[in-house]
């Protein structure tokens, strides 16, 4: 699969595989103005090392972002990291010994999988539904572990607009998760890159806010609300954990880029950061709508998918006889790519699902990309049906021979009745 992903970057490929935010609408004039100001007023400092924990000014920007979701962390509990990815790595480095149990959603963030694996965690998935992680299943997993005399080092969760699942943990489950953490004295690692990218509906309280920071370690990033190129993220953790994270950070890279911390400070000083996030939400909302409409039109009735109220991803699930790693090979021949679901699991499950990104492509590309993926799925569904019910399928499709059989109609007048799928 690694080799398959190597060719998704070809320019002729419509890639719905990435997780790229759209950076094309950030005003170049603002970029230039920020950098000019930094050069004129802080050249020596911006080119120098900085404190391991990050600049106070950066922490103020972080506090502004967190306040927008109702949180009020102590600046001393914050460390600025090289992207949110380093925050995950540092937390694992600090807390995980080989064989320790980590609990996460199934599917989980594909970028967390290699981190858990490299620290040799015993990773356990908890299934999700439309309201996020199934807390009942979490509790029975914790009970099962307890009977073996084991407890997880932490529960890793992306509660809002999950990557890759696209779903959001409900308010009730958030409260229950925080209660469980308290009752059982368990750490929860809340990874929240997308919380401010909400397209509709009410904002839900982050776990960190509900818990007050006793049992919840919070991870944030500027990647999706400003730029992934500046590689700035952060971690909020209580003092004993933070001390170890600071040591780990020193070992890893001494400090986060000072230059890009200055850039962030300038961006927030300009006072239009909220406006920029709102404009991104507008762009992504339209792209999500285009993707959902295209899925409805081009995916066969055997497929189902999530309908995210924010974030960057839709998670689609196909009949279990289709392995999406194999399907990707076929899709690549049609110059379209997605992330196979197995990449979001440590245990090989999820092989019939796929992650589709709507933030990194424009609406025409999304429609065309989904059409092509829908076609290759339909071909495989048709083939499977011909293989498993040969007589029935040939009888029910008189004159169906031909390349278009079983596909969604291409022309508006060419309507094929399709049963509605059950929306989960």
């Amino acid at each position, binding site marked *: 699969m690694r*080799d398959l992903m190597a060719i998704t970057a070809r320019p002729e490929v419509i890639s719905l595989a990435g997780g790229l935010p759209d950076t094309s609408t950030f005003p170049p004039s603002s970029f230039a103005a920020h950098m000019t100001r930094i050069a004129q007023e802080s050249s020596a400092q911006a080119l120098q090392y900085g404190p391991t924990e990050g600049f106070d000014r950066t922490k103020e920007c972080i506090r502004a972002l967190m306040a927008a979701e109702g949180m009020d962390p102590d600046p001393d509990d914050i460390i600025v990291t090289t992207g949110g990815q380093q925050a995950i790595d540092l937390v694992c480095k600090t807390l995980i010994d080989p064989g320790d149990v980590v609990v996460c959603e199934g599917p989980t963030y594909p970028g967390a999988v290699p981190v858990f694996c490299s620290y040799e965690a015993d990773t356990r998935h908890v299934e999700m539904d439309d309201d996020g992680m199934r807390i009942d299943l979490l509790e029975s997993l914790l009970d099962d572990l307890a009977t073996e005399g084991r407890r997880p080092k932490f529960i890793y969760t992306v509660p809002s607009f999950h990557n890759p699942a696209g779903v959001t943990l409900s308010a009730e489950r958030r409260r229950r998760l925080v209660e469980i953490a308290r009752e059982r004295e368990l750490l929860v690692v809340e990874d929240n890159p997308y919380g401010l990218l909400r397209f509709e509906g009410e904002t839900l309280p982050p776990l960190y806010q509900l818990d007050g920071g006793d049992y919840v370690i919070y991870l944030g990033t500027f990647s999706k609300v400003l730029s992934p190129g500046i590689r700035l993220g952060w971690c909020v953790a209580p003092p004993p954990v933070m001390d170890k994270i600071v040591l780990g950070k020193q070992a890893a890279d001494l400090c986060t880029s000072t230059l890009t911390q200055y850039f962030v400070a300038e961006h927030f000083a300009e006072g239009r950061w909220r406006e920029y996030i709102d404009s991104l939400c507008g762009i992504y909302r339209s792209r999500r709508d285009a993707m959902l409409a295209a899925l409805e039109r081009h995916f066969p009735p055997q497929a189902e998918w999530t309908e995210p109220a924010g974030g960057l991803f839709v998670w689609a699930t196909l009949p279990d006889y289709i392995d999406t790693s194999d399907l990707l090979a076929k899709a690549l021949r049609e110059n379209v790519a997605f992330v196979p679901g197995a990449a979001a699991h440590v245990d090989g499950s999820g092989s019939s699902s796929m992650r589709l990104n709507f933030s990194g492509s424009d609406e025409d590309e999304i429609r065309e990309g989904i059409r092509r993926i829908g076609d290759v799925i339909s071909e495989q569904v048709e083939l499977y049906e*011909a293989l498993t019910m040969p007589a029935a399928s040939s009888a029910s499709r008189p004159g169906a021979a031909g390349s278009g059989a079983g596909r969604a109609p291409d022309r508006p007048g060419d309507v094929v009745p399709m049963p509605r799928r059950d929306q989960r």
Partner: protein
Amino acid sequence: MKAVVLAGGRSLERGVSLRSGARVEDALRALGHDVVHIDPGAELVKQLKEAKPDVAFLALHGPGGEDGTVQELLAILGIPFTGPGVAACVRCMDKVVAKHELRAAGLPTPDWIAFNSTAFRELGAADALEEIEARLGFPLVVKPARGGSSLGVEFAADRDAVPEALVAAFSYDDRVLLERYVRGRELAVGILDAEPLPLVEAIPKQEDFFNFEARYEIGRTEYACPAELDEAETRAVQEVAARTYEVLGCAGFARVDLILGDDGPQVLEVNAIPGLTDTSLLPQAAEAAGMSFEELCGRIVELALERPREPAAAG
């Protein structure tokens, strides 16, 4: 001498090809050649005309690079290239074509049946699955006709597993083969200038036995080189491999994959341009024969220059 190394390309084995190519480039530089890397794309012909190389080293794998397409272009441009010509590439790339050639020449290869997807979609081939299964038995192996590494290759342990395995294999090619499974030792025979090198045996871990992907993951399969076979067995396997190379018209070098079962060796497939990465089997075999990677690459280039030019579009 000026050499271009062609590596990368658009096939699913792009990653392996880039690793093979990088290693070949280093080797050719160490031999004192002037080396240019080209990743074949829309500009390939233009780049080749500009580079005016004395030889092209092909480190491409899979359709596009190993199937005769690039070879045809090089022949037209009059550039000598490593590995076999167009016709042999066409024969090796498609396992079904290769197996027909081997059968016709009396060489052993497991029984098979090949279909394209149209047969199932439009001609009701699924109604013949019972007869097919009766002929091949279980477990059987389902493979895309064209494609390298282990991509899309699946074991079907029983009848119920066949449709899913076919759906997977058809993801990689429009033609697939169902092949009788032969139990035995998995051997790879590198061939250099028509001479077989020491045998390499793949010894998968028990739990990965039915997982072809594991053959390509470091640490999940052990390799023994030279394989521990007695002299007579070794000779028998090498002889079949060398004849296979000859029958398919390979040139320069190749790798023949076989199974040594109770009834002797059975040829599974031939790689016209085998992998040349640091974990690949042909370089290991060459090393066991006392040949360094630099010497191997040097010899492959010499063979390319010695070979008479292939007339373009001969086939």
